[in-house]
């Protein structure tokens, strides 16, 4: 679905073309971060992150490995505290108190469970530690998954363990469920099954979900909203429909980026001696007959944002579209 890209990537969007947006994009946001940053010793794992995650939707957080996805998610669930900036989750400080903790579910990377505890004991743990625990739902899910309640979690397969962790997260009845690379270690079948069950549960419970992945195709089927995180910064955050409607691949005779109309923001560009290819973001239709316009899939758009970055010579953020 995407044409082969040329190896030489030259340019990305110019920052002066960015459209400033108001602080509140969504009427109800489960996560609102402003100027959020996290530094480990001398390295910034996340910088200048201003972001909103809409309520009641499924949001995908995409980015290459080491982009800061886990840092952002652990800041949201309150396992970490930010170095700078503010973050509000479900109207409160992440992990501020027990009530706040009850509002956010978290399935951590590699889905940690207590190896020595059985499946049933994990549910008991959840029941003891969560006031809003839905035991019937948890039992029903375990039954449906075919997990043996007396089996130790350490002896479950990766997929089963992920399902157990998801069950714990869902039965807690949170307002927001955060999943960090939940399917990364699963085989394609288990991956599909996991996401399917997640979507069913989301439809039943009407909760907001935020899940991260470095594989865009995982998210394409399930997400309403996408955040692209590259090099510890948010590149783009928008609804999937908007992203698809406003991004175009233009290819035609060679042209410099500054000759493009002012409302076309370059996300990614590639040039040969005679030809130029751009991925642009624009609200208005592309009218120039010299261009061959190709509609972009979500994966193409996300990859364009991921690839568009390293060509930036000055090191300043370029395609901060939000």
């Amino acid at each position: 679905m995407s044409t082969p890209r040329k190896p030489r990537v030259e340019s990305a969007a110019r920052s002066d073309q960015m459209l400033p947006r108001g602080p509140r994009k969504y009427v109800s946001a489960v996560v609102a971060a402003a100027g959020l940053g996290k530094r480990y010793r001398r390295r910034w794992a996340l910088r200048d992150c201003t972001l909103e995650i809409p309520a009641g939707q499924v949001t995908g957080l995409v980015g290459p490995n080491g982009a800061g996805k886990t840092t952002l998610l652990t800041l949201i669930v309150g396992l970490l505290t930010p170095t700078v900036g503010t973050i509000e989750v479900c109207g409160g400080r992440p992990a501020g108190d027990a009530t706040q903790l009850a509002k956010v579910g978290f399935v951590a990377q590699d889905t940690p469970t207590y190896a020595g505890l059985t499946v049933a004991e994990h549910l008991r743990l959840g029941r003891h530690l969560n006031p809003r625990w839905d035991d019937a739902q948890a039992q029903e899910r375990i039954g449906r998954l075919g997990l043996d309640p007396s089996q130790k979690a350490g002896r479950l397969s990766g997929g089963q363990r992920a399902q157990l962790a998801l069950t714990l997260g869902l039965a807690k009845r949170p307002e927001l469920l955060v999943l960090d690379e939940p399917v990364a270690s699963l085989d394609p079948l288990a991956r599909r099954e996991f996401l399917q069950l997640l979507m069913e549960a989301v439809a039943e419970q009407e909760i907001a979900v935020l899940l991260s992945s470095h594989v865009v195709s995982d998210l394409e089927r399930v997400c309403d909203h996408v955040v692209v995180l590259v090099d510890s910064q948010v590149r783009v955050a928008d609804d999937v429909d908007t992203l698809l409607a406003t991004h175009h691949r233009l290819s035609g005779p060679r042209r410099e980026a500054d000759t493009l109309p002012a409302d076309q923001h370059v996300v990614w560009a590639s040039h040969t001696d005679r030809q130029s290819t751009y991925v642009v973001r624009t609200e208005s239709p592309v009218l120039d007959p010299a261009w061959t316009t190709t509609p972009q899939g979500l994966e193409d758009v996300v990859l364009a944002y991921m690839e568009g970055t390293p060509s930036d010579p000055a090191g300043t953020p370029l395609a901060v579209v939000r």
Partner: protein
Amino acid sequence: MIWLTWRQFRIQLLAVYALVGAVCVWLALTGPALAHLAARNKDVYDLLSSTDLLLFNGGIAVLAVAPAVIGIFWGAPLVARELESGTYRLAWNQSVTRWRWLAAKLGFSVLATAVAVGILTTTVTWWAQPLDGIQGSQRGSLASRMTPISFAMRGVVPVSYAVFAVLLGTLVGLVVRRSVPAMALTLAIYVLVQVAVPWWVRPHLIPPTTTTVFLSEDTLDGIASTGSGPFKITARGADPRDWVLTNQTVDAEGHPAALPSWFGDCLPPPPSDPGSGATTQVHQAPGTLDACLSRLSDEGYRQRLVYQSHRHFWRLQWAETGLYLAASGVLAGLSFWWVRRRLS
């Protein structure tokens, strides 16, 4: 939270309590006979069997090892194992704050530790009561409960050591984040503290008593010479059960002094080969020895003793317990601070 803590802890808990139970049963079976023996006989020491002596020293060993072992195996992995296996990310996202989570874990393990070691020390102290500090009619004795080795294994202090060890292990585990290095480091620090306290701290917990005695055959405990170096005299305190901190010869002005040079020549020759490090027993050639000591006294030499009276035993016990518990409180506070501030 209590259920989870119990569930994670129960096997270690049962193992330790089973061991404590076994030790107590053994001591309970042998204790009354010993007490009976001690009540009826003046020279109990000579009547003790080798098994009794083994049990006496075994009781000391068990109480020396138990707090350290519990601190290492319960304290250090308490949080470190959750950190290294990643399960803290599961635990800290339940609807329970980190402080409550840590409070439950610490509360449970500290209580379990205190009770286990409390039972152990009560039993051992009761068992050893008739034997502590007894003297043989000829030679040989068992350590008084004031001596550093026995003091730490009697009364209430072992409980505070164990609580301290658990909290030390927890904090080290929190900082190091890995169980095995945390266990090693906990052991190292604990041993260091256990050596440092009787050496530098315990003597000063209560002001020690200072007394000066005249040198005579009655007060003389021994004369020692190290190689070609000067002779050193040690004197007996008022009570053999006291813990003598300093035992030195002072001159007429009260300053610590070496014995005068004539003293070595005055002494009768020891019966056997006077090799280096030999201790001359006072019972040889009494007349001459007495004369030497009288001459020392005439020249103004006295023996100064600084000691903790055996009557201070319980006051010292409570003072040291308080010290360790205060340190434990600081460690617990640091753990709470660390779990909230540094691990985020």
